[in-house]
């Protein structure tokens, strides 16, 4: 093997280490299980599956990833290589880095090539911060309600896409030291309450939103105000799964009937809570992280004083 090939292989492995691609969610009798998305992966055929991708940050061009367009394309290629076509794809936001028309164009262009009947979106703060989501709604908000929230049913499962990245300041208290948490807003909460009203308690519910709907790390604003209120409307359901992005790493928590899960980014990893001064990209991704970032075993999370049991299912 030439030195160049070795380099290629090494950088590929390095890329694999953090270039988390997506998760395949397989639905079996109302219970979701997550699998790392790998090419040609086999699943036991029962129910249906869908893919979650997140945080593609089109337009980001610094360390550790100077070509996020390519890594998003790789994620799409992996979706297309699945033996069984997923029912649909969910993108949990931060499609773009700076919400420019060109970045939205590039993202749309790549995602169009995904072999899935439909892609459902919710925005991240990076998609809406310049214009309160106007451009995002124009491009990706078709068929949604209010400021972009939506629900749909698939094979008896009720899916709800919530938006918690608008009006970030309004709910953060005035002045210095606001929480900076995600915001759902009373209008959306009222809609949610109504949306699930007629459903039987045995209906499996899947909620997707960008910022985690449980408090992961307040110092970095990794949580959503009013998420408790939202979840209270879902208490009577036997199976609730909450899918989020935003934190660029896999975390999972089970609380009663609710399973929370965050997806990796297709662009760059972010530090585990509290392990860096700020939640910016991990610029130097060491090779010895390979195994853990492939998601084989390793996610244990201890935040200041509180402990989260986090389980990452793998193939």
């Amino acid at each position, binding site marked *: 093997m030439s030195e160049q090939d070795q380099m290629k292989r090494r950088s590929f492995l390095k890329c694999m280490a953090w270039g988390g691609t997506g998760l395949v969610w397989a639905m079996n009798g109302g219970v979701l299980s997550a699998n790392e998305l790998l090419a040609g992966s086999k699943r036991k055929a029962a129910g249906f599956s869908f893919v979650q991708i997140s945080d593609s940050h089109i337009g980001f061009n610094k360390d550790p990833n100077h070509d996020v367009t390519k890594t998003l394309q790789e994620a799409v290629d992996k979706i297309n290589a699945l033996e069984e076509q997923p029912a649909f794809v969910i993108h949990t936001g931060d499609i773009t880095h700076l919400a420019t028309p060109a970045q939205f164009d590039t993202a749309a262009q790549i995602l169009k090539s995904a072999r899935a009947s439909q892609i459902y979106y919710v925005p991240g703060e990076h998609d809406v911060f310049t214009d309160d989501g106007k451009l995002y709604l124009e491009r990706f908000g078709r068929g949604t309600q209010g400021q972009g929230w939506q629900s749909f049913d698939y094979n008896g499962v009720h899916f709800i896409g919530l938006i918690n990245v608008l009006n970030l300041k309004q709910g953060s208290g*005035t*002045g210095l030291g606001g929480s*900076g948490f995600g915001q759902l807003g009373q209008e959306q909460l009222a809609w949610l309450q109504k949306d699930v009203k007629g459903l039987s308690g045995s209906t499996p519910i899947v909620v997707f939103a960008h910022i985690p709907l449980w408090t992961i790390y307040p110092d970095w604003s990794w949580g959503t105000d009013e998420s408790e209120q939202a979840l209270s409307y879902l208490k009577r359901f036997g199976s609730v799964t909450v899918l989020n992005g935003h934190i660029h790493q896999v975390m999972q928590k089970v609380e009663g009937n609710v399973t929370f899960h965050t997806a990796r980014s297709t662009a760059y990893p972010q530090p585990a809570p509290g392990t860096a001064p700020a939640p910016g990209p991990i610029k130097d991704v060491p090779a010895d992280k390979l195994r853990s970032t492939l998601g084989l075993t390793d996610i244990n999370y201890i935040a200041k004083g509180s402990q989260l049991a986090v389980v990452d299912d793998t193939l």
Partner: protein
Amino acid sequence: MLTKRNLLFALTLALIVVGFTAYSRGAHAHIASIDANEIVIQNFAFVPSTLTIKAGEKVTWVNRDDEPHTATANDKSFNSKTLENGERFSTEFRKPGTYQYYCALHPKMTAQIIVK
């Protein structure tokens, strides 16, 4: 053993050092305050987090982080929009008051301008 003379010398030296340090600190602060009111965005924070100016003065933000940030007034009276690394935004404050602002991408980043 410390002689009287040595002790005096050491004390004098110490006084000079302390005095010089105090002088240079003061001088530095003076320079910073007459420098166009500049707020540096670094490590996900506005520095200084409170800036007091006189009405009619201009404030400039500069982003020293790799991450993009904004300086967005709570009341939307000013908005830098996206500031990438090295980019600047300036605005003039004509009316006295307290202007609280934040980063629209990282709303936990908050600070204020006090205009007298």
